[in-house]
């Protein structure tokens, strides 16, 4: 059936929407493009035949054209959906992607990510006019000034705004300014303790 492979690509993404991005399915894409080429060539033959006088080929041409449009749509949806996941990862993890995720991206996707990063960084730098504003911080409304955090991994020394130096040893608990440790919480180094 036409469009099967394209649907498989979509299913692959749908299945993995709660886990991390699956590897870029280069093979699948290639197969869809090949199917499109075959459909197009068959259509060209039928169109020439019709011009030459044959009848009854029109429905076939229509069907193949519909399949071509469907394949195109599925392919673009697959690519777009992956880009959206990557975009969300930039906002969650920061500008450097973890190695496991990068491993699953294609060369062009990594290029897209770098360009997106650059564009975003330029924009954030231009806000206000004094070095800019990091929009990936302050994601949640601030409830308290200081928060209690537990350290999940050894992270060495950490200097606070006041000049105090805290040693972030695994399982140690600290009372730090929320604005200073937000990024460490997102990276998974600290854990916010909620009572």
């Amino acid at each position, binding site marked *: 059936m036409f469009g099967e492979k394209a649907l498989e690509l979509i299913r692959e993404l749908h299945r993995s929407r709660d886990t991390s991005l699956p590897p870029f399915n280069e093979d699948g894409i290639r197969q869809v493009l090949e199917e499109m080429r075959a459909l197009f060539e068959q259509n060209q033959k039928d169109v020439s035949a019709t011009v030459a006088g044959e009848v009854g080929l029109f429905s076939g041409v229509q069907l193949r054209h519909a399949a071509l449009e469907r394949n195109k749509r599925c392919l673009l949806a697959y690519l777009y959906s992956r880009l959206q996941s990557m975009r969300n990862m930039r906002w969650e993890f920061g500008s450097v992607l973890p190695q496991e995720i990068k491993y699953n991206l294609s060369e062009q996707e990594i290029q897209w990510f770098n360009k997106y990063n650059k564009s975003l960084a330029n924009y954030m730098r231009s806000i206000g006019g004094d070095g800019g504003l990091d929009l990936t911080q302050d994601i949640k409304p601030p409830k308290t*000034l200081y928060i209690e955090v537990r350290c999940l991994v050894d992270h060495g020394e950490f200097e606070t705004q006041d000049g105090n130096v805290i040693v972030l040893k695994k399982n140690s608990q600290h009372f730090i300014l929320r604005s200073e440790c937000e990024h460490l919480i997102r990276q998974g180094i600290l854990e916010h303790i909620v009572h």
Partner: protein
Amino acid sequence: MAGVSEDIEEGSEEEMEAMTAGEVLQKLEEAWLNEKFSPELLEIKSDLVECMLDQIKEMEENIKRAKKGDFKVSLHRMEIDRIRFVISSYLRLRLEKIEQNTAHILEVERQRSDEETPHLTPEEHTYAKEYLENMEGHFKGIALRHMPPNLQTLDPKQTVIRPNLDSYIFLKVNENTEGVLVEEETQEAREEVVDLEAGDQHIMRYRPVAPLVSSGAVSLI
């Protein structure tokens, strides 16, 4: 704020400074909520953002000079955190809309007359263009380029995502406004016109009240 005669600008700039920081923050919060609940990208309130960023800088200076352990320092720090959150959220909401409706927004800006103020800052405009280019380049490079010749372009009618201006929103009325055309006359229904009284709260479609949001006569909640 460029390109307008100095005399007119002077008047409004003085007005801006005559507002207290508290009033500016309130206006910013209003702009933030409007942006959050409106389906379309509204006009950027750059002066409010810049003013509050300056406020933050001033407050940080004050903190540096204050005695250590002074209670006021904590209060100032919390205020700074809150203000920074509102500004970040406001700009983030706008970026999200720009990324969702890139082609549509760029089209609207292209068609805007020279007298109207643009809804995007120049930097947002650059960001939008770069984002669209990046996206289209990616599609072309991986997929479109390898497709049959008649399918290699993207038909805007099929691909452009436009904001749904008919979505319902909650609003509160700031200024008495009479004769708002809510439903146009069709074959099945008469036209529906309402009068909005200050202090009222309503739920209705966004489209008819869009100009009232821009003018400040109503605020979205």
